[in-house]
C-alpha cells in the first residue's frame, strides 16, 4: 500500500495491521524517551489547505516521534483563489523530494487526485465531506482499548452526519467489523447511507437506548441559519448529549468526540468531563495511530 486516502479503500487486514502497530507505538509513547528512529531520513510535508490545529499538531508530533524531517506548508485559501493550480502546488512540493504528503483539503477527492500524480505516500488528513481516515482509525483503536473489540457493539453516531468526514470514515470502518451503527440527528443532516446497513434515528431517546458507544460530532455553527436547524438552543434540546440522555445508553457506555467540542451545543460539560468520556484518550491515541500509518506506508520508495 502506497497511500492512505480513505477507509473505503482498506480491508479488514489493513486496518487490523494498523491498529496492532499502533499498540506498539503507544508503548513507545509511554517511555521516557518517546522518539524512535524508524523513519529517520524521510521527509514529510504537512500540506493543509484548510485550517487545522489538532489534526496538524497530532500528525506533526507523530512525524517527529518517528524521526522524520517535517515541513509545514499551509495554503489558507483554495488553490483556485490563489491562482496556482493544485497540481502545480503538489508538483512543486514533490520536487522538494518529500516521501510523505499529509493533506487536508476542503474538496473531496483531492488526496486521491494527488496520490495518482505523485510518487510520495499520500495520507488523507481530511478531504471535504468525504473521509478522515486517521480519525476513524484512532477512534477504533480507542474503542478496542476500552471494549476489547468492535464486533457486535452498538455505536450511536450523533449530529451532522451529512457534512462530517469523521462520521463517514467511522461508518465505513465500523461496518467492516460488524458493529451495529445508529445515526442520530435531524433529518436535514442525515445522508443516504442505506448501503451501509445503518439504522437512522431522529430521536436521541430512541437512538441512544442501550448503546455501547456514543460518538458525538461537532456542530458547525455556520449550519445554523442555513435551514439545517433553526437554532443551537433547539439543537441542544433535541440532539444534545446531557446526563439524562446518557443514562439511556448502556451503563458502561463510552462517550467520544473528535474535537473541538461545542460545550452546551452538542454536549453538556458534565458529560464531556465525566468518567465515561474518553475524549482525551482519543487525542493521545491519535499520535500512536498516525505513527503506525506512516510507519506502514514507509514513504516513497527510492528504487521504485
Amino acid at each position, binding site marked *: 500500500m502506497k497511500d492512505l486516502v480513505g477507509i473505503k479503500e482498506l480491508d479488514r487486514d489493513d486496518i487490523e495491521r494498523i491498529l496492532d502497530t499502533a499498540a506498539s507505538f503507544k508503548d513507545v509513547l509511554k517511555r521516557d524517551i518517546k522518539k524512535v528512529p524508524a523513519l529517520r531520513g524521510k521527509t514529510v510535508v504537512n500540506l493543509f489547505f484548510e485550517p487545522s490545529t489538532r489534526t496538524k499538531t497530532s500528525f506533526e508530533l507523530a512525524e517527529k516521534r518517528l524521526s522524520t524531517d517535517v515541513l509545514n506548508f499551509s495554503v489558507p485559501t483554495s488553490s*483556485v483563489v490563489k491562482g496556482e493550480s493544485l497540481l502545480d502546488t503538489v508538483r512543486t512540493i514533490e520536487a522538494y523530494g518529500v516521501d510523505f504528503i499529509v493533506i487536508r483539503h476542503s474538496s*473531496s477527492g483531492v488526496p486521491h487526485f494527488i496520490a495518482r500524480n505523485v510518487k510520495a505516500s499520500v495520507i488523507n488528513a481530511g*478531504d471535504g465531506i*468525504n473521509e478522515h481516515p486517521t480519525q476513524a482509525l484512532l477512534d477504533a483503536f480507542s474503542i478496542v482499548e476500552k471494549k476489547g473489540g468492535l464486533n457486535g457493539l452498538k455505536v450511536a453516531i450523533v449530529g451532522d452526519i451529512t457534512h462530517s468526514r469523521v462520521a*463517514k470514515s467511522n461508518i465505513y470502518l465500523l461496518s467492516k467489523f460488524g458493529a451495529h451503527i445508529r445515526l442520530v440527528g435531524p433529518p436535514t443532516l442525515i445522508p443516504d*447511507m442505506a448501503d451501509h446497513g445503518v439504522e437512522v434515528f431522529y430521536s436521541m431517546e430512541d437512538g441512544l437506548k442501550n448503546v455501547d458507544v456514543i460518538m458525538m460530532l461537532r456542530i458547525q455553527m455556520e449550519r445554523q441559519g442555513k435551514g439545517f436547524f433553526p437554532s443551537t438552543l433547539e439543537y441542544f434540546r433535541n440532539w444534545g448529549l446531557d446526563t439524562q440522555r446518557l443514562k439511556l445508553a448502556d451503563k458502561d457506555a463510552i462517550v467520544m468526540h473528535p474535537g473541538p467540542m461545542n460545550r452546551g451545543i452538542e454536549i453538556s460539560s458534565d458529560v464531556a468531563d465525566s468518567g465515561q468520556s474518553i475524549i482525551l484518550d482519543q487525542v493521545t491515541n491519535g499520535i500512536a495511530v498516525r505513527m503506525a500509518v506512516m510507519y506502514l506506508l514507509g514513504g516513497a520508495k527510492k528504487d521504485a
Partner: protein
Amino acid sequence: MPDTIVIKNGHIIDPSQCIDGIGDIFIEDGKIVRIEQKSGSPEAKKKKNNDFRSSELPNFQIIDASGLYVIPGLVDMHVHLREPGFEHKETIKTGTLAAVKGGITSVCCMPNTNPVNDNRTVTEFILRKAYDEGSCNVYPIGAITKGQKGEELAEMGMMREEGCVAFSDDGVPVANGILMRRALEYSKTFNVPIISHCEDVSLSEGGSMNEGALSTQLGLRGIPSASEDVMVARDIILAELTGGRLHIAHVSTEGSVRLIRQAKERGVNITAETCPHYFTITEDAVKGYNTNAKVNPPLRRQKDVEAVTEGLKDGTIDVIATDHAPHHRDEKLLEFDNAPSGISGFETALSLGIGLVNAGVLTMSKLIEKTTLHPAKILGIDKGTLKTGSDAEIAIVDMNKEFHVRSEKFVSKGRNTPFEGWKLKGMPVITICKGKVYDWRIDG
C-alpha cells in the same frame, strides 16, 4: 469540391422526405439535384439505362456508398463554441470542424460567451467568424436576459433579425418566474423557441454530481433530480399559460421525462432534447473523481438512463443534441467541485446514437429524425434534409466501423470526454459540407 458528385448505392435515409432505401444522390455545384431510389418505382428503373458516364464529365467524383448509410448532415441544436471570450477552450474554427468530423453540418451555439451573446453585435461577430472560418453552418442562440443575469429581457427582436434562431440562458436557469413568463410571451412575436436550462439553483447549489448513495460515498455534494424536475414542471406550466414555444434542454431525469410526456399528452406546445451521455452512462462514471464526467445536469442513475431512453423511443424526447462543452485540460485538472461542467461531445455523439440503434431502441431512421428533421423544424431552419435544391450537407456512415475513443485525436480543443478508451461501433466516414468533401477514413 468537384462540380458534380454522385453518391452511389448508399442506404439513403432522409426523414424529411420519408426516404429509407438504397439509391444514388446527385450533387451539382454544391446543391442536391436529384435522388434516385433503386427499388420500387418504374421511373427509377427507366433511368438505369441513362446512367452517368463519368469519363465524359470534367471535375466529377463518384463516391461508392455501398453498404453505408447516407444521411443529411446532423443539426446539433445545443453546442458551446466558446468564441468570443474563451478561445483557449474552443474556437468557431476548431469547434465547427470537430462538428463536421462528427457528421454534424449545422450547429446552434449557446450565448454563454464573453461577452454574452445578448445583443446583435455579438451575434454579428459570431456569424462573421463562422462565415470566415467555420466549416459548418452556425446558428447563434441569443440570451433570454441581458448578460444572462436573469434580470431583464435581452433584445430578442434585433438578435432575431441578425440571425439568432432561438433564445436561452443556457448554463444558468431563468430563476425568476415572471421573467420566464414574459420571455415565453414576448418570443411569440418572432415565433422562436425559448430553450430552458431547467435547474432550481436553490436545490442544486454547491452540488457537483447527482445526489444519492454514490454522492455520499464519494463525499461530494449532490444535485437532486428534483432540482431539474421542479423547473421542468414550472416551465411546462408557464408554456401552458402563455402559449409560448418551450424547448427543454438536456433532459436527464426520469421525473422530467414523465412531466414532459404528460404535458405533451395534454397538448402543451413543448419540445425536448437529451444528450448522448444521458442515455449512455450513469453517475458511476464519476467514481475516482473523474472530472471529465462532471456535467450539468449531472449524470444520473440507471433508472434515469432507462427513462430517457424510453422517452426517446416513445417520442417524448424529440431531439438528440450534444451539449458539446469543451474545456481546457488544465481546467478539468482541478478539485472535482472546482472543475467546470461539460463534455466535449461532437466527435462521439453520432456513434453513441448509433449505439441506440444497435441496442434496438431506435431505428436508424428515428435516430436521424431526432438529429436532423426535428431540430431543424423546431428552429425553423431549412437544414437537415436531402431535398432537391438544398445545400449538399451530407454524412456517410459506416455502421460496422469500430474505433477507440482517443481524445488526443479530437479535432476539438476540448479533450474532456468520459468515453476515453471506449470502443464504439458505427461512425461517419465522409462528411460533405460547405463545398468540401471530408474523408475521415484517411486518418484511420
